[in-house]
């Protein structure tokens, strides 16, 4: 550690804890508290990466999170900010963007031809011959910067939480700390979020006295109950102060995303020091004053031996003191305030060696420090609608006005002594707390429990803060030479000049053409310089050029943190554990996990047709409807008639949307005078519930109907097959005699000893069948009883696939499979269900016009002439011998009952008549023929089985 300074006050190192890590495979040591960068520099490694385009060697520039030159790979993690990430024992740190090695990089040859690789050069070349572009592209892609993703990286434990603080303070410098304390003391709940590992902001690398102030402020904040989050970033401010906070140091998790609904947001993000543009400004050894101050004071690192300091402000002055203290000799102070200027630097490949000044002086050095001014990170304020305004006297942008619930303080809004900053923070904190109290009060009143709020609304506080001063600062952006403006994108001021000359002369166009500000630091370092150079090139003012749009996130955020724990709701019937224990293959149907089959769907079909089968149909949507107007409601939503449905009957219906397209179908039973049970498709359950509420609340508010979803309250089991009556008969007191309980009727009674069960006779499978609905707490018991009691009858469970086959044999269509987003009701071919003598029903006009025009497709059943061929669902039906599409197969299966392939298809009307031969194009390109049959049902068209 040859560049390590002796221990000193202010350092954040624990020198008793040495940590071993590797750098490009070489073993090195640092201390607990080091960043990767400080540890590398302490070991004499000052080249940490290479630039994106020209692969120039790069060293520390700002020594903080935004440093564009110190991005490294750590193990399987790419793009780690080495100047922010704390060193850990065993870290394997590798330089990125270098090939074959950091010290020798072949792509650096790009630098030699740099003159030709001006911004946007690729738009102007590689066009001819066209066939070669893919190859060029391949080569360009190899130059992609950044680290490497290890595709086997596991999704670690990331977490999330919601929060409802009164006040969120972004930034833990003196202004932010002071605002947080004041707000908390005024009665607000406060979260203080600091991007760095320690609160204190710029005071951390300040004087002993500064650090004592930080300690005092921190103690006061804790005492006031402020929740302090360090190594955490406010990454975004969204509508209505919805604040995203990334916490990187929560125990037990990799990272945590906090979503806070703040009543007031205080932005105290301070300022970011901006680099200076001149020839050679990206040579290793050229740094900002903030960088050397951090390195020396916080990390005990000596940044060089002999320095030239170009200073326009007190930060430069302070850096000189720090450098002297660290034993760095000051070769020359270039005083910007007296008009002195740096022109350029020269260096070896590895380090700056000499500085040329405007007065012609050439000074030898290995460190060039610039202190040329600040950038205001207005990002969070801009997300709230603020537009930054340039102040030429202070040479930086300032916020111009955010909504009432967002307040800025500290260096972002002005300058001042430490006491001034703290005072401005304090007043801002009080204002934030006062406004938060109003919002809190209104929220309490607006929620339902308003009666519990006794106090009167607090008065709304006007912003009467005394603005901070704005100290004059020279406008120093660029020397008389050109240099790098965007380090991470390798964009120079020359590129900006030539782009402007080509006509890309607005700030947004130049950004897109040159990619300036589009790299990993997103303009934190480069926006102002970009704008300043463009203004120069245009002969315009910085204020007129304006800035590009700042967008979230404030600092890059991992996909892992955004995803958090991946929670995907799934729904299970109470019988699902039984299904799984009994060999069911699960299938996902929407949110439901259901049995697709229990090994052999075809034998499940055969058994059901011959004996009896049971299927768990719990996911079927079920709505309990009560009230005097249920029949009116049903008439309005279904296409058919409902006013005369007798108690004890069920009826099938289809529902249309207002454009006449089939929305859902199902049966509804009348259980009692004013009590009905409606079923919907499984996937339609939620949609139909809100559809009904919409009609009841907005179109027919005078109707009295109570709708309650009971889908999972009732376990639904369909008992199907010729022996279903025998089976159910063993378990129920309901009279199952065909006369007493005919087809399409509903009965209530005792099943397997359970009261209040509902049974109805319907037949999706085409068999004699009873669908029973039992209170779900007993669902599994009833299922098991059915299997036990029916063993001698041959009862077997069947799954979704067998049901699909049987319904196809029976020719029942499925909404969304046999119909699509444009299928109006007449497509189903169920014309008798469309009742035009009713006054009104959803979709009525469109259905009528569609039927009248008669040019809609229809669903038909058809059978391939070669009974062994099962066309794919989606196979197209063509006009014979042509490629004109006249329909498509929508459902298709081999029927175990008929021992032949069977289909449903949607065809144009002209092909819908029984006996029509259809030409079907199989996916493999063969054309086969199929014949339209008379009924939709391939099997038992008269329905004798289900009525029997």
């Amino acid at each position, binding site marked *: 550690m040859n560049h390590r300074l002796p221990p000193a006050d202010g350092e954040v190192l624990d020198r008793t804890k040495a940590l071993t890590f590797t750098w490009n495979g070489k073993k090195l040591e640092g201390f607990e508290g080091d960043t990767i960068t400080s540890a590398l520099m302490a070991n004499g490694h000052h080249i940490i990466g290479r630039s994106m385009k020209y692969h120039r060697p790069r060293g520390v520039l700002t020594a903080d999170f935004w440093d564009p030159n110190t991005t490294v790979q750590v193990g399987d993690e790419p793009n780690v900010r080495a100047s922010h990430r704390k060193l850990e024992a065993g870290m394997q740190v590798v330089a990125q963007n270098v090939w074959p090695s950091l010290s020798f990089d072949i792509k650096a040859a790009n630098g030699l031809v740099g003159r030709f690789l001006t911004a946007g050069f690729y738009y102007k070349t590689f066009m001819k011959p*066209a066939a070669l572009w893919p190859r060029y592209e391949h080569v360009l892609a190899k130059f*992609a910067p950044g680290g490497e993703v290890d595709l086997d990286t596991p999704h670690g434990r990331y977490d999330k939480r919601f929060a409802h603080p009164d006040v969120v303070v972004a930034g833990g410098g003196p202004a932010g700390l002071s605002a947080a304390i004041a707000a908390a003391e005024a009665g607000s709940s406060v979260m203080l979020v600091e991007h760095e590992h320690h609160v204190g902001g710029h005071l951390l690398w300040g004087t002993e006295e500064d650090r004592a102030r930080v300690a005092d402020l921190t103690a006061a904040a804790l005492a006031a109950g402020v929740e302090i989050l360090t190594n955490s970033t406010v990454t975004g401010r969204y509508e209505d102060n919805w604040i995203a906070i990334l916490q990187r140091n929560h125990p037990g998790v990799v990272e945590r995303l906090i979503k806070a609904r703040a009543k007031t947001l205080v932005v105290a993000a301070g300022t970011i020091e901006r680099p200076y543009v001149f020839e050679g400004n990206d040579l290793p050894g050229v740094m900002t004053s903030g960088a050397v101050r951090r390195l020396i004071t916080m990390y005990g690192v000596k940044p060089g031996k002999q320095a030239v300091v170009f200073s326009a402000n007190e930060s430069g002055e302070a850096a000189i003191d720090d450098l002297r203290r660290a034993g760095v000799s000051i070769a020359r102070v270039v005083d910007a305030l007296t008009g002195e200027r740096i022109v350029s630097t020269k260096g070896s490949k590895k380090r700056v060696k000499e500085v040329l000044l405007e007065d012609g002086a050439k000074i030898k050095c290995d460190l060039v420090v610039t202190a040329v001014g600040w950038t205001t990170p207005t990002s969070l304020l801009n997300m709230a609608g603020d537009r930054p305004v340039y102040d030429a006297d202070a040479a930086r942008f300032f916020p111009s006005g955010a909504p009432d619930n967002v307040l800025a303080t500290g260096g972002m809004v002005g300058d001042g002594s430490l006491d001034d900053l703290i005072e401005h923070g304090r007043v801002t904190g009080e204002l934030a707390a006062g406004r938060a109290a109003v919002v809190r009060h209104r929220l309490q009143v607006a929620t339902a429990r308003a009666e519990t709020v006794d106090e009167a609304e607090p008065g709304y506080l006007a912003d009467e803060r005394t603005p901070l001063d704005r100290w004059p600062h020279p406008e120093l952006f660029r020397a008389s030479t050109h240099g790098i403006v965007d380090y991470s994108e390798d964009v120079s001021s020359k590129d900006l000049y030539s782009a402007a000359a080509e006509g890309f002369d607005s700030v947004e166009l130049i950004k897109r053409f040159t990619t300036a500000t589009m790299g990993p630091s997103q303009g934190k370092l480069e926006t102002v310089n970009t704008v300043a150079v463009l203004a120069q090139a245009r002969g315009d003012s910085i204020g007129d050029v304006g800035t590009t749009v700042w967008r979230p996130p404030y600092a890059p955020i991992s996909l892992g943190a955004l995803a958090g724990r991946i929670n995907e709701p799934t729904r299970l019937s109470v019988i699902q554990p039984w299904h799984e224990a009994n060999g069911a293959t699960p299938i996902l149907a929407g949110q439901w996990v259901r049995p697709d089959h229990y090994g052999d769907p075809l034998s499940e079909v055969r058994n059901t047709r011959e004996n009896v089968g049971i299927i768990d149909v719990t996911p079927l949507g079920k709505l309990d409807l009560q009230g005097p107007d249920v029949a009116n409601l049903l008439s309005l939503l279904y296409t058919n008639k409902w006013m005369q449905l007798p108690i004890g009957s069920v009826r099938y219906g289809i529902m249309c949307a207002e454009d006449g397209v089939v929305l859902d179908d199902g049966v509804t039973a009348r259980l009692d005078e004013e009590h009905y049970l409606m079923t919907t498709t499984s996937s339609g359950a939620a949609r139909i519930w809100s559809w009904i509420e919409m009609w009841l609340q907005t179109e027919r508010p005078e109707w009295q109907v109570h709708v309650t979803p009971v889908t999972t309250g009732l376990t639904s089991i369909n008992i199907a097959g010729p022996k279903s009556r025998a089976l159910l008969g063993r378990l129920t007191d309901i009279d199952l005699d065909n006369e007493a309980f005919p087809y399409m009727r509903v009965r209530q009674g005792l099943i397997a000893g359970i009261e209040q069960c509902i049974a109805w006779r319907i037949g999706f499978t085409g068999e004699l069948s009873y669908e029973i609905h039992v209170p779900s707490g007993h669902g599994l018991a009833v299922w098991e009883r059915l299997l036990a009691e029916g063993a001698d009858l041959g009862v077997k469970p069947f799954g979704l696939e067998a049901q699909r086959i049987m319904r196809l044999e029976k020719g029942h269509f499925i909404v969304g499979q046999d119909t699509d987003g*444009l299928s109006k009701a007449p497509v189903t071919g169920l014309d008798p269900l469309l009742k035009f003598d009713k006054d009104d029903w959803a979709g009525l006009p469109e259905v009528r016009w569609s039927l009248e025009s008669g040019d809609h497709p229809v669903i038909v059943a058809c059978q391939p002439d070669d009974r062994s061929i099962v066309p794919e669902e989606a196979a197209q039906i063509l006009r014979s011998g042509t490629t004109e599409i006249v329909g498509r197969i929508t459902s298709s299966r081999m029927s175990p009952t008929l021992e032949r392939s069977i289909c449903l298809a949607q065809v144009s009307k002209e092909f819908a008549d029984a006996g029509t031969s259809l030409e079907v194009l199989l996916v493999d390109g063969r054309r086969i023929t199929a014949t339209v049959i008379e009924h939709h049902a391939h099997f038992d068209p008269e329905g004798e089985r289900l009525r029997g």
Partner: protein
Amino acid sequence: MGKNKPPAKYSAAGLLWRGLRKQSWPRVWREPEFKNSYDVVIIGGGVHGLATAYYLAANHGITDIAVVDRAYLGSGGSGRNTAIVRSNYLTPEGVAFYDRSLDLYKSMSNDLNLNVMFSERGHLTLAHTDSALRTMHWRAEVNKLQGIDSSVIDPAEIKRLTPSLDVSTNTRYPIMGALYHPPGGTIRHDAVVWGYARGADAYGVDLFQQTEVLDILTEGDHGSGRVTGVRTNKGDISTPIVVNCTAGWASTISAMVDVQLPITTHPLQAAVTEPVKTFLPTVVVSGSLHVYVSQTDRGELVFGASVDPVATYNMGGTLEFTEELASHVLELMPGISKMRLLRQWAGLCDMTPDYSPVMGPTPVAGFYVDVGWGTYGFKAGPVSGEQMAACVATGETPHLIKPFELSRFTEGNLVGEKGAAAVGH
């Protein structure tokens, strides 16, 4: 007009030449003087407006055109889209239309003498359910009949083409298959915009940035009548023909002549990650998971989703978008959890009920629309420009865009693209 001087030729040799002589390139387009009268005014300087102007000039010799945009060229959807190009649509109308666009894209770098970096890398639409797979088959079959390279592939083939995808079966949304469309890919969206702008400018078309249309001047009854000019923040322009190419803002322009559109404006959001070495060779789309992703040559992953549910003109973007995006992307590619999102943004989409555009004449004479581009309109830029130019120049609606006329809504002849998943691209 006399202005049409071909633009400075871009080439590698030119690059070298100017590099050696330290000479800069001439402007891509002029800063024209504001005139008070034009033959045609096109509102919207996105790909649609600029392509229409370009083809009016190039194919029909009409060059007295003003293209006006209230911000910078490409500031709308054209500058903020994820630039996915494909032609494997669901309906024959859609397929024929988008395939023509793909053809125009293929020769564009040459035609416009500007590299638009069309990367024909292959487009995968994943199916996670039976019914999605059925739709994929349906699309593939329709595509094949029209000679489009499009087929359904199985998980093993998906893995071979895109190793970062998790094709195991024990996931919440197992990948059951995909519609594979080898000619699909991505393009440098900005380059397309600049290419058309530069090309149109060379023919003498005047491009006005920072010029906002405040009203459309008409004679006769509102809602019928005829167009006489437009009012802008820079002054009035008289013109007999106005073409509305404002995508997300289409309704605001049409409202100026009382033409109601079947459009609602919804934000569509996108995001990029920090760059990493390239690992994702194809464009991957998952309709059920509402996400799509591709990797640029610079190494960033570019993500998109489906539109936000609430209609708004606010382009602020939401946190929820990034949360859902991340969780869904990680379900598809679990290995990238440590990659970081760098920037999110939003654009406005002019959504129609049948996921198809609205193109051609309106009841107001001289007022044409080329709108309803939803989430898929970038890829249609070239063909739309070509066809709208023909429509305006001849007064007849060409057959390629006939199915997309505004009148189809009142006539009840919607286009069947609604059958395809909401995230199309």
